[in-house]
C-alpha cells in the first residue's frame, strides 16, 4: 500500500512540532483570540436549546447505528443515487479516489475545477494529484483560499486559516490577487476581494468538486453545509459535480437531519443555523449540474471501523468544537499535528486512518499524536456526537505501548514502577530510597534533577521528600 496522504510528508513528531509552534508569538495570539471568541459563542448557542443533551444522545445513537450497519446503508445510498441519475464510485484509498476524480475531470474536458471546502479531498491530497494530472483546482472557501494563495497548510477543520489574522490575510491577498493591491484589513473588504477574485471562475467553471456533510441512504440526498455561498455556486452552476465523501457520512433517513442540522451549526460556527445548507438528489433536470458523481472513500475508515474502541471516531461530523476548546490545540495550533485533521479529533483519527502506511518518520508522528493531550476531557464535553476522545486517546496509547519492544526504556521503567507498586513492602522501600533526594533540596524544594526528570525540573520545582511519609507516620502514631 502507498503512503496515506492524511499526514504531511516529513512532519516531525508532535512534541518537537509543538515546540516550534509555541515559539511563534503571532500564532499564539491569533489562536488565543479566535478560540476564545468562538468558545463563548458556542456555549451561548448551545444553551439556547433546552434539549441539547438529548440531541447529542440521539446524534450518537444514529451514528452508531450507521456504523453498525454501514454496508446496508451504503448500498442503499448507492442504489438511490443511481435511481436518480447519479453515478457512484467506490475508492479503497487515496490514490484510487484521486484517479477516479482525475479521469472524470478529463472526461468533462476541463483543465480547471472549482472546489468547495472538503476534508475528504484534503485528506487524500486531491489538489496535488489533480495538479500532477494537469488540472488546477481552485479553492473557493475563503479560508481555503487564504491557505492556497499563501502556499500554506491548513490548521483547523472549519477555518483552515485560523492561524492567520486579518493583517496577514491582507498581505497575502495584496501579494497574490491581481485586483487586490490596495485592499484593507477590514474583514468585509477582504471578503469582498475574495468575491471579486472568484466571481468569473464560478460563472465559467465546467466541473466542481465538493465533499458531503451527510448523505441520506433512504433517498440518495446529499447535504452540504456552508456559509459563504461558494458551496451553492459550485453545487449549482457547473455542468458536472463530483462529490467525494467518506464512507461514514451516510445517515439512514431524512428525518435524521433534524438532529444534525441542530447539532452541527451550533457546535461549529456557534450559529443557530449556518447561512446556507444545500440538499440535492442525483440530477434534477433544468436545475443544477447535468452529471453527478459520488465517490465513496474508504482510505483507512474500514480499518478504523474494525477497532471496537477506536471506531467511535467515525461518528465525527467535523464541527471542530473539540479543537476550539482544546488547551493543547489553543497553544500549538493545528499544523503541529502534521495532518489535515488537527486537535483532539486529529489525535485520534489520524493515527487510525494512517495506520499501516507508517514509514519511519510518519510512524513516529502517528505514535506521538495520542499523547498530544493532557486528557482534560474538555473535548468530550462539547462533542455533539459524544465521542469519548480521552477514552480513545488512552486506547491508542495502549496500542502504541503494545507495539513497543520489551527493552524500550519507557516500557522498562513502567514495568519496574508497577512491580514496585504491586507490593506494599517494595513501595515502602522505594519511598525510603527517595529520602536522600532531600540532600538536593534548598528551602524544601529541588530545582534541578538529571534527565529524564529534568523535563520536569526545567520549568517546575519538585518538593523535597518529607522526613516521614504518611504511611510511616501512620505506623508510628496509630500502628
Amino acid at each position, binding site marked *: 500500500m502507498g503512503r496515506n496522504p492524511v499526514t504531511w510528508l516529513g512532519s516531525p513528531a508532535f512534541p518537537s512540532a509543538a515546540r516550534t509552534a509555541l515559539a511563534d508569538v503571532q500564532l499564539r495570539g491569533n489562536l488565543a483570540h479566535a478560540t476564545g*471568541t468562538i468558545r463563548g459563542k458556542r456555549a451561548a448557542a448551545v444553551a439556547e436549546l*433546552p434539549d441539547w443533551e*438529548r440531541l447529542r*444522545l*440521539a446524534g450518537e*445513537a*444514529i451514528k452508531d447505528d450507521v*456504523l*453498525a*450497519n*454501514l*454496508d446496508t446503508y*451504503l448500498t442503499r445510498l448507492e442504489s438511490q443515487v443511481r435511481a436518480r441519475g447519479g453515478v457512484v464510485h*467506490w*475508492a*479503497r484509498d487515496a490514490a*484510487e479516489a484521486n484517479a477516479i476524480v482525475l479521469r472524470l475531470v478529463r472526461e468533462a474536458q476541463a483543465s480547471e475545477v472549482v472546489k468547495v471546502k472538503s476534508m475528504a479531498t484534503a485528506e487524500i491530497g486531491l489538489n496535488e494529484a489533480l495538479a500532477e494530472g494537469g488540472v488546477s483546482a481552485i479553492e473557493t*472557501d*475563503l*479560508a481555503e483560499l*487564504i491557505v492556497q494563495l499563501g502556499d500554506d497548510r491548513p490548521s483547523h477543520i472549519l*477555518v483552515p*486559516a485560523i492561524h492567520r*489574522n*486579518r493583517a496577514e490575510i491582507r498581505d497575502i491577498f495584496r501579494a497574490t490577487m491581481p485586483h487586490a493591491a490596495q485592499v484593507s484589513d477590514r*474583514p468585509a473588504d477582504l*471578503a469582498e476581494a475574495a468575491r471579486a477574485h472568484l*466571481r468569473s471562475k*464560478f*460563472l465559467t467553471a465546467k466541473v466542481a468538486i465538493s465533499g458531503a456533510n451527510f448523505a*441520506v441512504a433512504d*433517498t*440518495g*440526498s446529499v447535504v452540504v453545509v456552508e456559509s459563504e*455561498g461558494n458551496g*451553492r455556486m459550485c*453545487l449549482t452552476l457547473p455542468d458536472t459535480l463530483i462529490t467525494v465523501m467518506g464512507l461514514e457520512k451516510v445517515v439512514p433517513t*431524512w*428525518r435524521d*437531519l433534524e*438532529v444534525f442540522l441542530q447539532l452541527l451549526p451550533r457546535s461549529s*460556527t456557534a*450559529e*443557530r*443555523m*449556518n*447561512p*446556507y*445548507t*444545500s*440538499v440535492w*438528489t442525483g440530477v*434534477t433536470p*433544468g*436545475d*443544477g449540474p447535468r452529471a453527478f458523481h459520488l465517490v465513496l472513500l474508504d482510505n483507512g475508515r*474500514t*480499518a478504523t471501523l474494525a477497532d*471496537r474502541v477506536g*471506531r467511535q471516531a467515525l461518528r465525527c461530523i467535523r464541527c471542530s468544537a473539540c479543537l476550539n476548546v482544546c488547551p493543547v490545540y489553543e497553544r500549538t495550533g493545528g499544523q503541529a499535528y502534521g495532518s489535515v485533521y488537527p486537535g483532539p479529533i486529529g489525535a485520534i483519527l489520524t493515527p487510525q486512518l494512517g495506520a499501516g502506511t507508517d514509514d519511519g518518520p510518519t510512524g513516529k508522528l502517528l505514535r506521538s499524536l495520542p499523547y498530544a493531550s493532557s486528557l482534560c476531557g474538555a473535548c468530550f464535553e462539547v462533542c455533539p456526537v459524544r465521542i469519548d476522545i480521552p477514552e480513545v486517546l488512552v486506547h491508542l496509547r495502549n496500542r502504541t505501548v503494545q507495539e513497543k519492544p520489551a527493552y524500550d526504556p519507557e516500557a522498562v521503567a513502567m514495568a519496574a514502577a508497577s512491580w514496585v507498586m504491586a507490593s506494599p513492602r517494595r513501595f515502602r522501600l522505594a519511598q525510603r530510597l527517595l529520602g536522600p533526594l532531600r540532600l538536593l533540596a534548598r528551602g524544601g524544594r529541588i530545582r534541578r534533577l538529571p534527565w529524564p526528570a529534568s523535563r520536569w525540573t526545567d520549568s517546575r520545582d519538585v518538593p523535597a521528600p518529607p522526613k516521614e511519609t504518611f504511611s510511616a507516620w501512620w505506623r508510628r502514631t496509630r500502628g
Partner: protein
Amino acid sequence: MADPREVVLRRIRAALADSPPVPPVVRDYEVARDVGDVLDLFAERVADYRAVVRRVRVEALPVEIEASLRARGARRLVAPVDLPGWWRGGEVVWSLDGPAHPLSVRALDRADGVLTGCAVAIAETGTIVLDAGPAQGRRALTLLPDYHLCVVRADQIVGTVPEAIARLDPVRPLTFVSGPSATSDIELDRVEGVHGPRNLEVLIAH
C-alpha cells in the same frame, strides 16, 4: 483486479465481525416546542443575521414589494415564471426565468435582485427554505443576484428544525437560507457578504 466496491463492502463486513450492539435511537428531544409567537420569533431571528425583515399584509404585497425595491434602488429584477403575477409591479424591468426560457448565468449575474416565495421557514433559527416549488424557481436564480427579496407566508413558518424537516421533500433540490451570505473565516468572527446574495430581505405576509 478486484472490484473496489466488493473490496470495501467486504472490509466493512469483516470490521463488523463483532456485531456491535445497536441500542435503538431514542428521539426524546423536542420535535416541536412552545416558542411563543412564531411570527415574532422568526422576524427577530432573521433580523439577528442582519437581514431586513418586515411584516406586511398579504393584500398589500404589491405595494410593499414596490416599496422594498424602491428603497433598494433595484430596477432590473428577475423572478421565477410562476411567481404570482400580482406581486410584480412598480417601475421595474422584470425578467422571468422558467424551464422553457432559462435566463443565462450572465443575465442572472447582472440583475439587481430576485423576488421569490419560499417553501418553509423556521422561526427558531430564522431560516427560509427553498425547494424549487411554486414561486421559487431553480437554485441559480436565488444565488447570483446580489439582493434576494423573499416573501414568506405566515402559514409557511414553523417553530423548529424538526418541524421543517417533516414538511420537506429531500428529493427536491433544497436550499436552507439563514441570513445573507457570510463567513467566519477571518478570526472566527462572522462577517456578512461573500459569494451568495449579500442582501437578504424578508417580507412576512399575514
